[in-house]
């Protein structure tokens, strides 16, 4: 059974370069520790050639020209490790997390899917490179050999079965010791004293003599050197956490560079989601603000010199999406409407993974706005009129006036033609048909002439619609059966218009409105009052008398709804019948 290993050399460096690709062309050294005692923890090949070695202090490195420093970031290493796992799991479901920089995969059964082993290895390297990690990939007959080959050889290596000892023989003994534990250091020193430099030297030692001197540990290392170990993978099921973090060298105050960084993070997250065939409909943005500034939408700013402020925004999208450009635009619009108000020193972006939607539009269904475009449009409209001024309606279970609330606009998918849908057809064909989309069984039809739009599973019943004085031969008219009476609409005045009412014989006779002179005048007709009240058990109870009045205006007679607030005593025009 073939196994593959993905190894990331100089993992702390690669985790930083993943979010700052421009550092790849420079000599980069990663420092660890607190200033001024920072020491070199890792470096890339360019820095190594320039003379940087682990343990050097920052002062010593500054003597080397052209070295770029970065502080070690555990969060970014965690993100890079998660990316590596996503990359591996996009190929094989059986993955072992050997180390933060080493992942093992079981390639059994994948050759019919992805091709021969060398092709799989190259695809692994390419996928990791697309995710921003420079890796070494090795394929062998057992996992330990694959791990040694990935650590020892750069690029893509394929070790044929039976050739493990021969291929591994040229590697240095140090490759057997992934971590520098105390006993490993002692064994390495022992081998060094014996003159064992390469794995072939270790493999050639006699078994019994080796076990007598260094014990079973030495035997195990010899088996590794020979490529003769055999074990099963310990698969890992990591929690699906899609999060990217970036710490900034200097605080950000402008939206444009922040958008640039957010775009990069979103691109990484979307690539990781795509590797697992997932999407997202929730983005969480957490910004750490510069010392002393607390930015909270619900609280007044508070100054706290010892702590970092936090600013969080959550974007929820009604449908799962995977377009990082759409997410970036939504975040930009949201930040423009709700700025953090302080410099940013750290960015954390997380997404909630969900199954992608499998939507297929029907051929005969009415078109609907594309979800991505609709979200952007709604965000832009909210930026113009306000968040609470755009959306769909929800009526509340109350008799209180204005008993509704705005909610997020999320239209449902159309379900198909309704049974009372009628349509006339083009000239030359018998007009009208009633289409019952729910009837999937063919029925005996009375239609003499077939419609060019006959569906395979539906029959049309001929029905004539009487059209008066119109030529509809070249026109399709979709008529809803308008059997319902036309409802008289009431246009609401927001805010209501305060008026002064003259009462005569117990009925309103005249209204006066200084602000809206077109509404004042003599009341020609009045109906009412209709008394209503409610919520008297609440703090905000209401009680009102409603009148329907007709007022002679400049352009004609206008009908209004006049309301008297019995609690406040004021008269208002609530709306006009139109």
């Amino acid at each position, binding site marked *: 059974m073939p196994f593959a290993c993905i190894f990331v050399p100089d993992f702390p460096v690669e985790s930083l370069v993943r979010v700052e690709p421009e550092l790849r062309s420079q000599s980069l050294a990663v420092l660890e520790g607190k200033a001024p005692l920072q020491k070199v923890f890792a470096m890339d090949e360019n820095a190594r050639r320039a003379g940087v070695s682990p343990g050097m202090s920052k002062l010593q490195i500054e003597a080397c020209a052209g070295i770029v420093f970065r502080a070690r970031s555990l969060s970014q290493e965690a993100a890079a490790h998660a990316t590596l796992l996503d990359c591996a799991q996009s190929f094989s479901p059986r993955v072992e997390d050997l180390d933060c920089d080493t992942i093992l995969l079981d390639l059994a059964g994948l050759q019919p899917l992805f091709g021969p082993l060398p092709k799989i290895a190259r695809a692994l390297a390419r996928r990791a490179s697309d995710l921003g990690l420079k890796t070494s990939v090795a394929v062998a007959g057992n996992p330990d050999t694959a791990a040694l080959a990935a650590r020892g050889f750069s690029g893509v290596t394929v070790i044929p079965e039976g050739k493990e000892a021969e291929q591994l023989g040229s590697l240095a003994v140090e490759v057997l010791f992934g971590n520098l534990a105390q006993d490993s250091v002692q064994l390495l020193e022992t081998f060094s004293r014996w003159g064992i430099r390469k794995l072939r030297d270790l493999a050639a030692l006699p078994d019994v003599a080796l076990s007598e001197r260094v014990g079973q540990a030495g035997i195990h290392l010899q088996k590794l050197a020979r490529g003769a170990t055999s074990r099963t993978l310990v698969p890992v099921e990591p929690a699906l956490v899609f999060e990217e973090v970036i710490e900034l060298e200097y605080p950000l105050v402008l939206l444009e560079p922040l958008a640039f960084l957010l775009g990069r993070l979103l691109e990484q997250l979307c690539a990781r989601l795509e590797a697992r065939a997932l999407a997202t409909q929730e983005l969480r943005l957490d910004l750490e603000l510069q010392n002393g500034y607390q930015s909270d939408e619900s609280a007044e700013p508070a100054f706290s010199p010892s702590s970092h402020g936090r600013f969080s925004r959550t974007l929820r999208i009604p449908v799962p999406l995977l377009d990082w450009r759409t997410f970036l635009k939504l975040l930009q619009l949201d930040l423009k409407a709700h700025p953090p108000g*302080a410099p940013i020193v750290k960015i954390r972006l997380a997404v909630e993974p969900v199954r992608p939607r499998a939507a297929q539009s029907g051929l005969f269904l009415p078109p609907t706005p594309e979800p991505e475009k609709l979200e952007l449009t709604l965000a832009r409209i909210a930026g113009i009129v306000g968040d609470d001024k755009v959306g769909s309606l929800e009526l509340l279970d109350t008799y209180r006036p204005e008993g509704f609330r705005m909610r997020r606009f999320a239209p449902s998918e159309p379900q198909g033609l309704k049974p009372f849908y009628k349509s006339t057809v083009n000239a030359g064909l018998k007009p009208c048909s009633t289409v019952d989309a729910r009837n999937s069984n063919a029925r005996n039809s009375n239609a003499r002439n077939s419609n060019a739009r006959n569906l395979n599973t539906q029959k049309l019943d001929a029905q004539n619609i009487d059209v008066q004085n119109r030529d509809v031969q070249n026109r399709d008219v979709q008529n809803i059966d308008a059997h319902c009476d036309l409802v008289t609409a009431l246009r609401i005045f*927001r805010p209501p218009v305060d008026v002064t009412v003259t009462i005569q014989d117990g009925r309103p006779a005249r209204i006066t409105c200084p602000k809206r002179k077109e509404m004042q005048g003599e009341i020609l007709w009045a109906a009412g009052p209709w008394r209503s009240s409610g919520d008297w058990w609440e703090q905000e109870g209401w009680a009102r008398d409603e009148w329907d009045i007709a007022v002679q205006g400049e352009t004609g007679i*206008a009908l209004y709804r006049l309301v008297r607030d019995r609690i406040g005593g004021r008269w208002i025009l609530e709306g006009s019948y139109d």
Partner: protein
Amino acid sequence: MSSLPLISTAAVSRPIAIAVPDWSTPDFKRLSLFATPKLAGVTSASRLEVRPSPQMVSSGVREIDTLTGGLPRGCLTEVCGPASSGRASILLAALAAATQRQEVCALVDISDSFNPLSAAAAGVDFERLLWVRCGVRLQKSGSPQRHPSTLLREGSDTKKKENAHRQIEKPVEQALRVTDLLLQSGGFGLVIIDLGDTPLKMARRIPLTSWFRFQRAVEHTGTVLFVISQVPCAQTCASLLLKVSGKKLSAFSCQLSQETPTHAQLLDGLQIQGELLRSRLERKPVGSVTTAFTTKVRTG
């Protein structure tokens, strides 16, 4: 400056032969008007493509459908009339018809006068209606600029200028921008711009270029752009112009006896008269055609 002679003296002495076509020869007949060669870039009028008629959808009012054939897709339809002339009732009927067809609709409410209860009584499906309420934006309590020197701002514009600009942005300007966004987004079956309560001078200030831009945006799409106004605003950009007015209002009369108490009176509805002023959907010009219908008061 001496001028060149038109005819050289050497040519004058030689007789000039001029070919005169023989009128009876077949060659001349080929040069008749019926065989006039086609001019480059000019297409004969008879070969011009006939623009296909737009698809018509129901307006929700049977009488209007009979009068106009419905509302045309990909065109701008305007309904104008004074207050209490039935405009909002027609608006709700169109919304109800469109949402029942399971189309997604958008209402750009410039005056924020949409009544949810009336809409519910008319049968509007709120799940498919996007309501955009234009108007003056309410500022949050406390300025968002907590520390002006450390703001997250875009480019060189300060947040104060942007907020000040938003405060003075008029509802009509908001509506025009929102309509642009909705039409560019696409996918809406019906987009309504409600200018019913907008003051006349503000409505008339909407430039014709905006209406032309809207009309071009919906052309070749399945979107019905529906405008409600007091007076015609879209002018030539409207393919269909319907004027409504309230006829004698039913159930009441100015000569009603004063002895009838007010609590015995009831508003039944409106009697509306509609007049088709313009229709570009027919080849022959349409004369002034009218229709009448009534509305019923129904509580939600």
